[in-house]
């Protein structure tokens, strides 16, 4: 490799000349990697230690081993604390779905949650301090910035390589790679957040003598909080996507299932793990999202804690007040009102008729809850009798609501609704602050939903093969409870002081009607779709099929095709034969539960109610309110019937007997009705505060008032605002 070349050297313009000047970058790197792995083992171990520790103890030792409902409960609480009730319920529901996909999926779901948490936790520990340093010291940012730029240009696969070299294949290296991949946005956003804080506000803190530490904690961090929260959210999502890639190098979790499904071209595995992956992403994203304002439970708790000694009490203290009055005070600017808090503040107290209705609802709700512990099935199992042959005949035995052979998920649904009714009732009675739905309409919704669910269990026909089945007392108690709770809640809605939180549109609203009709269409489709798939019958190998197989065997023996493809060809032929023998049960068939028909019936009822609520029959405000709640109840019921069927079968699952897509479509119908009712009813509240027009800081207000501007004479808005203010 000498530059002083002899005559027969290739010319420099020729590509071949490049071979003579090879830069051995690859082998240098290899050398260094080797050296590091050999000589710096201690360092590598030290770096890996926190990851190893957390993965071993927290993920594998705790989360994966945790009984699944515990994890659901924990996540519910976490979501409730950092976000709100809605997100918490969504979280729990989503996780339940992940669990119902099967134990395998659940385990990987739990592992995924754990790995994500570990990665994000370490990102936060490293990223936020780095971001703060970068935000406060230009020199640090000067170094970090190009580094981060480079990190974000590199393809995610490339991240894996060094970790494989240094720490080998496995969860530890994969989590590290994930962390490094997910780190940049957190650093960037923290830095940005700190820098965005207005200079004069920071200067004000300094001018009042704050040490730099307090400048950071009192001003810069609080004001950078939204940016940092966004950063954490971004990091979480990036970690999530990277964890899918990291499955290649042996990270556990749903990514592994996806990866396997990809390799095996297994559609069912791919779909199920994909679904779990998606649900988990949505859940974690929701939980980690920045809350607008301070409405989440956690911050409310801290605010409440801090306000123990808030100075408002000082203002009420007459002695101190007198002292204040001595100083001559300029009258406050009257044009600016403290805030229109009145809309939230004043709740109409509970009157006697309302109280009676509430008590009735509570009784019904309590019956619904109690039913869980009573017998739902005698001498056989209604639901698992489909999937488990042994459950088709269980003479002399009886099963409670919670048992798989008993009410199972139908009973769970009824109980949940009962609890909701009770919560709503108690909350209004003690009139403490609560969510929008802990109110009469929420109670009616839950009562009707629970009733329909119980009735759904009642109308489910047992498998034709089931012998001697009879319904237990628990089911009747559930239905009775549903009826009482519905009646109580109905009455409650009729007598409760109520008020639209914003004015109702005078015209018929199209959206609920459209949604209701769509729901009914879905219900019809559901009725004709598969509710159960029975593949337990063995493939019948007819002589023709046998001939096909023989042909393939012969071709393979003759060497015309390779043995591998031949094997899969034979499998395919057998599978085809089995497909011909499988039993598809649709929603109306008497061989199945027959729930498709009832889904349609309940959906239709809900759709009619939704149409009424939308103003189609010229009903008054209160009836619209009622109709909306009823439509939502029907939607909930239909949804719970679908969940009950799918969930109950999933509990006693036979890989060859599964619930069908019809149940899912039925569930969608239920959702449509829920949405239809919600459009109307979300505008109402239990308390009637300022006549029929109540203004609040609802985000819908501006759109509403502009919509109203066309129908109302101009100026109404101002007139109302003045009354509110005075």
């Amino acid at each position, binding site marked *: 490799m000498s530059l002083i070349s002899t005559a027969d050297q290739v010319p420099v313009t020729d590509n071949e000349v490049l071979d003579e000047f090879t830069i051995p970058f690859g082998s240098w790197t290899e050398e260094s990697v080797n050296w590091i792995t050999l000589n710096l083992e201690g360092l590598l171990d030290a770096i890996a230690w926190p990851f190893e520790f957390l993965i071993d103890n927290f993920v594998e030792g705790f989360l994966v081993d945790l009984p699944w409902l515990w994890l659901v409960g924990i996540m519910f609480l976490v979501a409730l604390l950092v976000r709100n009730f809605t997100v918490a319920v969504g979280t729990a529901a989503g996780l339940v779905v992940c669990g119902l996909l099967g134990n395998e999926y659940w385990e990987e779901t739990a592992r995924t949650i754990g790995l994500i948490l570990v990665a994000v936790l370490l990102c936060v520990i490293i990223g936020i301090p780095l971001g703060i340093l970068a935000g406060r010291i230009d020199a640090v940012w000067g170094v970090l910035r190009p580094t981060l730029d480079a990190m974000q240009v590199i393809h995610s696969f490339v991240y894996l390589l060094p970790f494989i070299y240094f720490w080998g294949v496995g969860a530890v290296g994969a989590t590290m790679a994930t962390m490094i991949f997910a780190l940049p946005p957190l650093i960037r956003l923290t830095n940005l957040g700190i820098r965005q804080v*207005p200079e*004069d*506000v920071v*200067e*004000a*803190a*300094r*001018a*009042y*003598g*704050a*040490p730099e530490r*307090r400048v950071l904690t*009192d*001003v810069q961090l*609080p*004001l950078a909080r939204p940016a940092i929260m966004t950063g954490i959210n971004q990091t979480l999502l990036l970690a999530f996507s990277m964890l899918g890639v990291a499955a290649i190098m042996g990270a556990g979790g749903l990514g592994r299932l996806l990866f396997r499904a990809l390799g095996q071209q297994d559609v069912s595995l791919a779909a199920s793990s994909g679904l779990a992956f998606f649900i988990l992403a949505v859940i974690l994203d929701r939980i980690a999202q920045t809350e607008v304002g301070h409405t989440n439970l956690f911050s409310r708790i801290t605010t409440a804690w801090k306000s123990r*000694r*808030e*100075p*408002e009490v*000082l*203002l009420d203290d007459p002695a*101190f007040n007198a002292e*204040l009055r001595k*100083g001559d*005070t*300029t*009258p*406050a*600017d009257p*044009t*600016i009102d*403290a*805030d229109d808090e009145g809309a939230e503040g004043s709740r109409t107290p509970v009157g006697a008729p309302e109280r009676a209705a509430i008590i009735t609802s509570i009784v019904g709700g309590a019956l619904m809850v109690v039913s869980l512990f009573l017998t739902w099935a005698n001498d056989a199992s209604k639901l698992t009798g489909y999937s488990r042959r042994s459950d088709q005949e269980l003479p002399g035995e009886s099963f409670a609501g919670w048992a798989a052979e008993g009410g199972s998920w139908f009973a769970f649904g009824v109980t949940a609704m009962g609890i909701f009714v009770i919560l709503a009732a108690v909350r209004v009675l003690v009139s403490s602050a609560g969510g929008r739905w802990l109110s009469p309409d929420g109670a009616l919704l839950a009562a009707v939903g629970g009733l329909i669910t119980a009735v759904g269990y009642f109308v489910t026909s047992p498998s034709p093969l089931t012998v001697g089945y009879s319904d237990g007392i628990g089911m009747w108690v559930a239905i009775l409870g549903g009826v009482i709770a519905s009646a109580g809640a109905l009455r409650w809605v009729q007598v409760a002081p109520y008020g639209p939180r914003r004015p109702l549109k005078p015209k018929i609203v199209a959206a609920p009607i459209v949604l209701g009709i769509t729901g009914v269409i879905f219900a019809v489709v559901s009725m004709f779709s598969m509710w159960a798939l029975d593949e337990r019958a063995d493939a019948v190998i007819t002589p023709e099929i046998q001939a096909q197989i023989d042909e393939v065997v012969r071709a393979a023996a003759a060497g015309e095709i390779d043995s591998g493809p031949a094997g899969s060809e034979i499998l395919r032929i057998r599978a085809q034969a089995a497909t011909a023998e499988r039993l598809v049960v649709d929603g109306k068939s008497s061989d199945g539960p027959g729930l498709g028909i009832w889904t349609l019936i309940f959906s239709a009822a809900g759709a009619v109610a939704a149409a009424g609520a939308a103003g189609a029959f010229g009903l008054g405000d209160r009836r619209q309110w009622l109709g909306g709640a009823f439509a939502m109840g029907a939607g909930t019921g239909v949804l719970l019937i679908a969940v009950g069927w799918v969930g109950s079968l999933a509990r006693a699952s036979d890989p060859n007997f599964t619930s069908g897509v019809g149940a899912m479509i039925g569930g969608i119908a239920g959702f449509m009705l829920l949405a239809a009712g919600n459009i109307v009813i979300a505008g109402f509240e239990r308390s009637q505060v300022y006549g029929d027009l109540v203004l609040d800081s609802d985000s819908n207000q501006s759109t509403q008032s502009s919509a109203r501007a066309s129908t109302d004479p101009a100026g109404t808005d101002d007139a109302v605002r003045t009354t509110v203010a005075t």
Partner: protein
Amino acid sequence: MKEKIRLSGVYKIFGDQPRGRALDLAKAGVPKDDVQARTGHVIGLTDVNFTVREGEIFVVMGLSGSGKSTAIRTVNQLHTVTDGEVIVDGEDVQAMTGSTLQAFRREKMGMVFQHFALFPHRSVIDNVGYGLNVQGVAKRERDKASLRALSLVGLEPYAMNRPSELSGGMQQRVGLARALAADPDILLMDEAFSALDPLIRRQMQDEMMAIQAELQKTILFITHDLNEALRIGDRVCIMKDGAVVQIGTPEDILTKPATGYVAEFVQDVDQGRVIQVNEIMVEPRPLDASVSVQEGLQHLGDRSGAFVLDAEGKPVSVLTTGDGIRVSGMGGSLADALRTDFETCGPDDTLASVYAAAGRGLPIAVIDDSGRLVGNLDPRHIMEEMGRVESLIDGFEREVFL
């Protein structure tokens, strides 16, 4: 009076090497633009000297970029100075570091900012109490002090609100209350009222002066508005390109501008002045030409002069007190005492236009379009009016510099 704040020979240069050639050039008196062109360094302050006395409102006034903010920030060491000394209460501010500096800032002074600079995430009362919070005062005590400060500016009903829920004027009052809460000796106010609209600003100025009358703080006030400076300042310091141009009482600034630059400002004020002759002229009370000098003097009373009119009501001559006394002493008649070399003006003329005429000390005849006497303008009144800066500025509310 005791001196509270003193800047002596203060230079502030912005740039990588503030103590290098730029400082030498600045000390040699090279103008700001030249220094910038030659060294790339910006002169913030160049040889600034002033003293703020205890209990006075000292206003620093200058156009945008003249170094006012830089100057005020050296007082609490938000800026370190490149050269020179900043003394507060006999202590060298530049020598302070760390916790000494923080304690000094907390205890000695409160600062009010142009754009309020309230902490948006804290309630009004927590904003006001921030200085005390940093001092480690217990919450209850802190809240009491904060409420007291808020009551000074009339905002205690809003204690629990967030700053964003208040109007601009109210927010700045919160800023003022924050500065007052720890009861510091010194208030630093950097364009405190400049972001407010004129009416609110006026109100705030009144409020601040009322508070000042009660609490007797030492106030270093920054503004770019000469009207504001003249209105509230006990003394005014005018800055240009980082240097002090003139320091003096508002009267000094108005009547004895030190340089053409200041004169230009004052000119602006004069031209802006819309006070018209008819606002300070008195009714004519013409003199009958047939009376004696004694009777004429009696007729004058405490006026400086009276005009004699012709048949059409036009002024033809004037009797002044001085002339009357002189002639009556010599025993002359009224006709000897009358003079005809008087000045005239219209009732709608501004005071500025008659300023020169008034310099002769003779009464000026105010005549209408047809030449008839409608008023009598006493030169003493003009001077009085000019001296009464406050009322002079009160007459108009025009933003001179923006």
